């Protein structure tokens, strides 16, 4: 018999669906520190070691069922480098972009209509029994239907480019495995106007809500922070490819147009014993203040302009709220996300009308390299994939910094801010505190909320510790 030892990892330990928050108080019962724990252990970086590199874009996307396309494409971009390809054919690059904008469109639509709209439409403190997607469907049936149809549109684009709506195979090292047929293109063009209209109305809801509640939202879970994203060479927002730009809370560039393959010279990951999620920070600023935010808010702040007319007009309105300075209002993530939704449909329209998508030149070959880095702007923010291979084409090293990890410290800051506003001298966890922590975390659209909030419930456990580390209260919301 084989001597292999069988290790069973129970699903409950592998994927923990609960958000876990610890609040540490000082001697005066004021919040000293907040910790948003991520207790899932995935282990992808380890168990792909030894696998052949061409499997990786298909394998690592299994990290997620919500935005697998982002992992698929970031890994494929890294593998382009491994196979020695620096420039794809126009058909391959545009097919991948179409896949990516389809992903962005469906993910942003899902988050806005089904995950965050209950908070916006019913209020943060509304009864969770109605503050959920079913509540939205009952009271605002048109909105609920739009959310479903927009998500479907994006998913169909993913299917047409990657082969499947979830976990496809479209992007391969050096290119793509299919083009877009005329029939597929015409099917998408048929509904594009409707998608434009619904995107514009979703943007209006997010904008009006933010502007009308600006006084309340400005301090809510907010704090000054640096922002990081990819940026095109001319400073335009580019969700598929670019160089790295980081700015501080006032808009001053910390670094700009950095070739992302050199990311390790600029970003360091710190490990803390209480979370499986690492803490990245900007090297030149240091571990204390070098943390940053990523995602729609960061991208709106870092870019000089958006290269599609409707989204650019919306960006100008967005930036006007903070007089052109970076917007550090956490709840403005929702507005920024809807600007990107509109940008995505504009990009999809441009791509569908581009004849390169019907080209047949799909893959480029090059001279093998032993290391590859691929970055992409995923719906939730900058996603880093970095791999090394050996002479036998097997992976020897993998480093992934996912979007939610980049926002790790920002979660803590947001939770701390909310907690400080609720706990001031009285060491007790209230229902209101739980609700507000939930709303603050959801603004970032972390994977956690996607996985667990679909029915309006984000299982959340908040524990309160006194200054000596003794647990004094805890409350769980199922």
């Amino acid at each position, binding site marked *: *018999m*084989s001597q*292999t030892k*069988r290790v069973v990892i129970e699903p409950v330990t592998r994927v923990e669906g609960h958000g876990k928050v610890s609040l540490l108080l000082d001697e005066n019962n004021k919040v000293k520190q907040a910790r948003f724990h991520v207790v899932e252990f995935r282990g992808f970086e380890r168990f792909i070691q*030894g*696998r*052949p590199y*061409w*499997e990786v*874009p*298909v*394998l690592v996307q*299994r990290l997620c069922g919500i935005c697998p396309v982002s992992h698929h494409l970031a890994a494929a971009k890294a593998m382009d480098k491994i196979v020695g390809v620096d420039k794809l054919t126009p058909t391959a690059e545009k097919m991948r972009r179409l896949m990516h904008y389809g992903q962005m469109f469906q993910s942003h639509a899902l988050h806005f209509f089904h995950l965050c709209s209950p908070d916006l439409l019913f209020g943060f403190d509304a009864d969770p029994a109605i503050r959920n997607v079913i509540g939205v469907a009952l009271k605002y049936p048109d909105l609920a239907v739009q959310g479903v149809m927009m998500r479907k549109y994006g998913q169909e684009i993913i299917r047409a480019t990657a*082969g*499947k709506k979830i*976990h*496809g*195979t*479209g992007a*391969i090292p050096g290119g793509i*495995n*299919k083009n877009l047929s005329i029939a597929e293109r015409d099917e998408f063009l048929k509904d594009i106007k409707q998608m434009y209209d619904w995107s514009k109305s979703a943007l209006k809801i997010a904008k009006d809500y933010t502007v009308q509640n600006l006084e309340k939202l400005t301090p809510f879970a907010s704090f000054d922070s640096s922002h990081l994203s990819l940026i095109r060479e001319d400073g335009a927002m580019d969700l598929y490819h670019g160089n790295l730009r980081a700015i501080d809370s006032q808009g001053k560039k910390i670094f700009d147009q950095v070739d992302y393959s050199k990311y390790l010279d600029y970003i360091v990951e710190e490990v803390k014993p209480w979370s499986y999620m690492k803490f990245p920070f900007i090297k030149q600023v240091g571990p204390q203040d070098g943390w940053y935010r990523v995602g729609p808010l960061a991208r709106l702040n870092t870019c000089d302009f958006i290269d599609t007319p409707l989204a650019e007009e919306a960006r100008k309105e967005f930036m006007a709220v903070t007089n052109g300075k970076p917007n550090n209002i956490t709840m403005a993530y929702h507005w920024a996300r809807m600007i990107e939704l509109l940008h995505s449909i504009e990009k999809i329209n441009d791509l569908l009308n581009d004849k390169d998508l019907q080209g047949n030149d799909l*893959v480029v070959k090059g001279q093998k390299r032993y290391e590859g880095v691929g970055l992409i702007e995923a719906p939730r923010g900058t996603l880093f994939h970095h791999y090394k291979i050996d002479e*036998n*084409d*097997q992976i020897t090293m993998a480093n992934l910094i996912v979007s939610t990890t980049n926002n790790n410290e920002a979660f803590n800051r947001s939770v701390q801010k909310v907690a400080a506003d609720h706990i001031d001298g009285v060491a007790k966890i209230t229902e209101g505190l739980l609700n507000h922590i939930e709303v603050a975390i959801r603004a970032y659209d972390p994977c956690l909320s996607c996985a667990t909030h679909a029915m309006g419930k984000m299982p959340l456990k908040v524990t309160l510790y006194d200054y000596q580390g003794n647990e004094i209260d805890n409350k769980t919301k199922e």
Partner: protein
Amino acid sequence: MSDQITFTIDGVEVKAKPGQTIMQAADEAGIYIPRLCYLPELTAHGSCRVCTVIVNGKPQTACTQPVAEGMIVENDTPELLEHRRNLVDMLFVEGNHLCMFCERSGNCELQAMAYRLGILAPKYPYFYPDKPLDSTHKDIFLELNRCILCGRCVNASADIDGKGVFGFVGRSIDKKIAVNSDKNLGDTNMAVTDKAASVCPVGSINKKGTAFKIPYGQRLYDQKPIGSDIENKK
């Protein structure tokens, strides 16, 4: 001696030539008998047992059993379907078959057989064997986690390529494919153009540079189940 033999498969009269196996006669008649190790151009050896049929009341492998006049063969019966499901199920749990990122997915005979037989998930517990991966050859990638010990590569390399690159070592549950080198596949004289490089029914012997190049919808078994090519001869 007559140059034609008549027998029945599931009550259907089939004509065959003397010396033909049940499998050969059935294929010509457009009757599909499920199989995993059999390949017409290689010597049949009946190792996978998936093609087991009932011949005059007794189980026999269709790929090795010659036809005989008046023979009564049962193929498509609930009992044999269950038997084949169990065999395929055991092949799955004895290896590490992770279809979701296997480059042969959609073109894999084991996966296609499971779909054809209606297996959606294995009912037996997984063994999780510790099998090696050999990527030392510049053009070929050997992944023994997916090997079902069909022996096609052994026969093809010995009988067609005349190289004998592959062979079986070990017995029972420890039986595995080995290469005729002290080291790895990269140290053998195997070439990507060898027959042995293109007979593997699963994702165990793969040509480098071909992974995931066929999109969904165009893979071998995306549109029609395995065996359709034979059934279409009817």
